[in-house]
């Protein structure tokens, strides 16, 4: 039996004994997590330490595993949206939209251009909210709380936009098959405009607090680095991959939702260390702002949802007065919608990388199989090899710079 199959503490006990016999060094085991103030989520890492140096580590995951793939096999399509909220809960609208796009592709529904642009706006806002958290928390982990408190106000403003659009803040359950559940209110547009006019100055100030800050640079440059080859081999996508210098972005490689209509850059780093990840995310925020501006300016006229009565709920007034509408309403709520037998994989660029839904339908009202390709789950397996031979305090900052979200890790 391979040693790796043993629980890490047994494996390390052997190593400690050997090392002690060899040269008298006393290694120690540190159990970091499952809940620890420095890890921002449910992560347990059992780490073998030599003083403050990390010799080896093994992560235990699954503490918030909720069996979404099993639940999804027993729920009609519209009820699965609330499960996707809880994957990467820092940017739920991206997950929601990705799920609707997967279903729409399976059902062969054409989406009006206006809906696509609105989805782009909300997805980019979600990306900004996600990057705000990651970048500012990196500041916190290096001892700079100011920037975090400063930009979190603007994450709050994004949540107010969500609230205006769908009524919820964190787990948004936004959209329906074919579009949005209601027209965006003038208030929502006004909030987006306000955000676009106020946020750039704040973000520039946040960047000037940290980007050329001597302490921050010393703490992050050359820490937690990964080469481009290793990153690809480990299945990295998103900002973590681009920080290593690979310009792969799903929005450009396989455009969805009209991303080909917008003009934006893909920021890349060079060394793949914590500092590059920080810089890539910050630059992405600027690109997202550019995309939102273009989408608002170019927003076409049109409806806020596709005309698909088989899948899209009729207005409630009609349900009470019109027989047809009542039938559709009942059938949609009970999940009795026509579903073709098909299978497809649909990727989108989520805040952390390529989020993919692999859906198999068998013509019934529930998926036969739904698999989530969660970027965090795949990225996190490289964590222990990245932090090996570094300092314990660097391991903490590497974890926050990878932006591992526990909800997406465990599904």
């Amino acid at each position: 039996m391979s040693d790796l199959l043993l629980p890490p503490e047994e494996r390390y006990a052997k190593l400690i004994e050997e090392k002690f016999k060899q040269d008298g060094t006393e290694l120690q085991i540190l159990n970091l997590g499952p809940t620890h103030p420095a890890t921002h989520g449910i992560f347990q890492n059992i780490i073998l330490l030599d003083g403050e140096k990390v010799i080896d580590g093994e992560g235990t995951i699954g503490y918030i595993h909720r069996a979404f793939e099993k639940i999804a096999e027993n729920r009609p399509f519209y009820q699965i949206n609330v499960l996707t909220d809880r994957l990467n809960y820092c940017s739920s609208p991206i997950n929601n939209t990705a799920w609707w796009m997967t279903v729409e592709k399976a059902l062969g529904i054409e989406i009006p251009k206006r809906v696509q642009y609105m989805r782009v706006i909300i997805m980019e806002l979600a990306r900004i909210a996600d990057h705000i958290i990651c970048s500012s928390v990196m500041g916190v982990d290096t001892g700079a709380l100011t920037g975090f408190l400063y930009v979190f106000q603007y994450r709050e403003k994004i949540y107010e936009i969500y609230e205006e659009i769908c009524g919820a803040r964190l787990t948004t359950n936004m959209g329906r098959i074919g579009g949005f559940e209601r027209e965006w209110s003038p208030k929502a547009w006004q909030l987006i405009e306000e955000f676009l006019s106020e946020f750039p100055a704040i973000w520039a100030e946040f960047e000037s607090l940290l980007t050329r800050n001597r302490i921050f640079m010393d703490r992050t440059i050359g820490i937690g680095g990964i080469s481009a080859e290793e990153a690809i081999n480990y299945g990295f996508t998103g900002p973590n991959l681009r920080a290593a210098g690979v310009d792969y972005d799903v929005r450009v490689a396989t455009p969805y939702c009209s991303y080909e209509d917008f003009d934006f850059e893909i920021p890349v780093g060079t060394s793949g260390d914590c500092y590059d990840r920080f810089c890539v995310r910050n630059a992405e925020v600027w690109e997202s702002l550019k995309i939102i501006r273009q989408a608002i300016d170019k927003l076409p006229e049109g409806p806020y949802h596709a005309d698909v009565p088989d899948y899209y709920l009729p207005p409630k007034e009609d349900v009470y007065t019109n027989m047809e509408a009542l039938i559709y309403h009942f059938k949609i709520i009970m999940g009795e919608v026509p579903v073709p037998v098909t299978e497809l994989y649909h990727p989108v660029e989520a805040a952390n990388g390529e989020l993919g839904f692999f859906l198999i339908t068998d013509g019934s009202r529930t998926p036969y199989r739904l698999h989530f390709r969660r970027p965090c789950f795949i990225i996190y397996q490289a964590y222990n090899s990245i932090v090996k031979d570094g300092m314990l305090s660097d391991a903490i900052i590497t974890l926050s710079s990878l932006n591992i979200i526990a909800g997406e890790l465990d599904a």
Partner: protein
Amino acid sequence: MALDNITIQKKLQATFGEAVVDFHEQHGMLVFEVSHEKAHDIIQFLKEDEEMGFNFLTDVCGVNYAEEVESRQLAVVYHLHNWFENVRVRIKTYLSIKNPVVDTVSDLYKSANWQERETYDFYGITFKGHPQLKRILNVDTMESFPLRKEHPMEDAGRTDKDDRFFGRTVHNC
């Protein structure tokens, strides 16, 4: 020359013959089935052959086809991606539910490591040669493989929730 689905199909058929079957396109993606003995070799070929160049393993997951014959009840699905030509393929390999064993691809792509552990965890598929094949999301003491169709979603003793009304399939409606 741009890599297209026909080229991939022809080259695979010329190299592996009967081990690759059932080529078809779904939503523009080439899908094919490989025999489980050859799965590792074929993925290695797709990765290392210069013309193929599938440098990225996007996803590995299991599927339980409960209505199929016994030798095809489990499947492992690989999604590979060639970033240079931007081509994706889906590879399926069917396994028997009695003895589901397939070679690991974690020696080719490190990203397969946890994904195969997850597949083992939920479907009980053994990946031969995997360095650390143990449960990952479920507790180590768990005895069943929860994503198999035979495993009920909820405790059968529950009376407050009738799953038939949610999990109705073409077969029981």
